[in-house]
């Protein structure tokens, strides 16, 4: 069992009568940057809390570095860094005091592990005497990451670290994760942003408490075996409705300022589609083949499962 950093087998968790997670099975290799991708309410936070030994699974086996989250939570807590979805540092303490405190809690000092956090911490070090509550969203995330890293964890659990952070900071954050990966830390990230999936080594698409697919992001995109078109007409508003009534439609959904249309398998419905839309009174019809993104794959997966 030593071969995996994280091993989850047949995990179930429900709150009263709401099923939060069901039948989760996934193995994560040491040193992997692994993403759990799914919309809000998919069960990501519950999963991360179970991994952090903060809540107990109802059923199934969850092991981190060979330690079971139920019996060996003490060993696990010494070896993981956990960053909850909500900003969870002391807002009235300064940047440096927060970091020093979390280092102390883990029996280490900032100086001892400075090398590990240098890349990240040096960006917020100019503000080290500022109360954490007064930092910007991006800086808060950097501080939280520094605090989660200061004790040199073997596994880093980041629950939605980029939610509520601006696009530039998000990019920076992922860049930092890529760098961290080089030091051999296994990193688990959850995110509702589909575009971040491509930055992971492997991702699990998670929806309504179930994992739909686990694979490398490229594989997931390659597995998209339908034709995908971006469609625009002069009447965007009824377009989605009209497309959904078209007989060859697998699924259609808004995507930016176009509507993505997935035809049923192996069909090339362009001609029929144009005449259908014209029949419905659309003009200036633009239909372009589009390369699928993870989001397209996610929606298709979701569609197939229903």
């Amino acid at each position, binding site marked *: 069992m030593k071969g995996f950093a994280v091993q989850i087998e047949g995990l179930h968790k429900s709150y009263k009568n709401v099923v939060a997670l069901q039948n989760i099975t996934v193995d994560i290799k040491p040193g992997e940057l692994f993403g759990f991708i799914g919309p809000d309410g998919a069960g990501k936070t519950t999963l991360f809390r179970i991994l952090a030994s903060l809540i107990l699974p109802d059923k199934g086996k969850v092991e981190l570095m060979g330690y079971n989250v139920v019996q060996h939570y003490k060993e696990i807590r010494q070896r993981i860094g956990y960053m909850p979805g909500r900003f969870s540092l002391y807002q009235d303490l300064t940047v440096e005091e927060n970091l020093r405190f979390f280092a102390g*809690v883990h029996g280490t000092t900032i100086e001892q592990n400075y090398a590990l956090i240098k890349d990240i911490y040096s960006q917020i070090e100019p503000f080290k005497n500022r109360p954490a509550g007064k930092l910007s969203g991006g800086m808060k995330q950097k501080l939280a990451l520094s605090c989660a890293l200061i004790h040199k964890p073997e596994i880093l659990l980041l629950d939605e670290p980029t939610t509520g952070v601006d696009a530039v900071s998000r990019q920076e954050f992922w860049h930092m994760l890529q760098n961290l990966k080089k030091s051999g830390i296994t990193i688990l990230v959850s995110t509702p942003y589909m575009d971040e999936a491509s930055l992971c080594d492997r991702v699990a698409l998670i929806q309504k408490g179930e994992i739909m697919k686990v694979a490398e992001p490229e594989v997931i995109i390659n597995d998209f075996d339908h034709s995908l078109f971006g469609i625009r007409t002069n009447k965007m508003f009824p377009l989605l409705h009209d497309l959904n009534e078209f007989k060859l439609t697998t699924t259609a959904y808004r995507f930016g300022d176009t509507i993505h249309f997935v035809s049923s398998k192996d069909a090339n419905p362009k001609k029929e589609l144009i005449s259908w839309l014209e029949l419905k009174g659309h003009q200036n019809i633009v239909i372009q083949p589009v390369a699928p993104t993870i989001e397209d794959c996610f929606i298709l997966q979701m569609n197939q499962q229903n």
Partner: protein
Amino acid sequence: MKGFILKEFLHIFRDLRTMLILFGMPVAQVLLFGYAITNEINNAQIAILDHSKDPVTQEITYKLLSSGYFQLNDQLSDASEIEQAFKKGKIKQVVVFEPNFAQKMTKDPPAVIQLITDASDPNTANLLSNYTQAITGDYLRQTSGSKRNLPVINIETTMQYNPELRGVFMFVPGTITILLMLISAMMTSISIAREKELGTMEVLLVSPLKPLHIIVGKVIPYVILSFINALIILILAATVFGMPFQGSLVLLLLQSALFIVMALSMGIFISTVSNNQQTAMLLSMFVLMLPTILLSGFIFPIENMPLPLQILSNIMPSKWFIIIIKSIMLKGLGIAYIWKETLILIGMTLFFIGMSVKKFKIRLD
């Protein structure tokens, strides 16, 4: 651990409200209680019922009225008028001289002065009767020298409406108790609940810290600050209000420390069952504060309570602590007399610490 305690101090010192509650409130409360109780008495309205009307009674009456403390409101002629005089609400005290007062004083001592005092306000009543006794005693010494051994005048004091006259020097023990309880229990329970509310508890739990570490780290700053508070209250009580101080200071401080730890462990226990600051605060108020004030004997004498409440008062730690402080401060008793109360407090402390450690959740709900 050191880091944890340091962090806790920073939380306290950076929050103005916390600091105000910690240090502003005790001073304000002691001063309030103190000044409410040491009000000087000036021109208290009294009535005189002189059955004797001889030179001695007239002399004493004159002395009383010229002292500045008393003002004659009414001359009564019959005992039946006393009740009526009180009911008008103006007079605070009736001084009654028995018939043939001067004669009795020399031939068949003691002669009796009866003081009937409106003790619905016990503090004033006590002061009035003390003043009257002092003035009469003064008069005696002046007239007869200090040779006589036998008291020639006997003063019988009747405290109307509140015969027991409780709560005279209760204010300091009571205030110390309430403040220590409030600060210790409420502040710790709130500070732990705050960690839960803000999500920092989640991070603490995931760290290798043991529950005991978290609890002790939380408690130590408040132990120190509460102890400083207790000192402030005692110093104020002694210097500003001249609170009598009979017993051992060391013993009193040790007992205060014990009570502080007790209150803190209660606070932690409360925090283990509340998930946010509001709940912690309300629980502290209703579970700790109100019973402390109402059932500890601070305001209402326990002996006067119905039996079920008397029994209930036994589980109030504050009851035992008030007994302890009173014994040490007012009666000057040593540990030999209060070991039982001390043991009860120690037992309660251990119970709450044990319960807190046991109930402290190592996971989220």
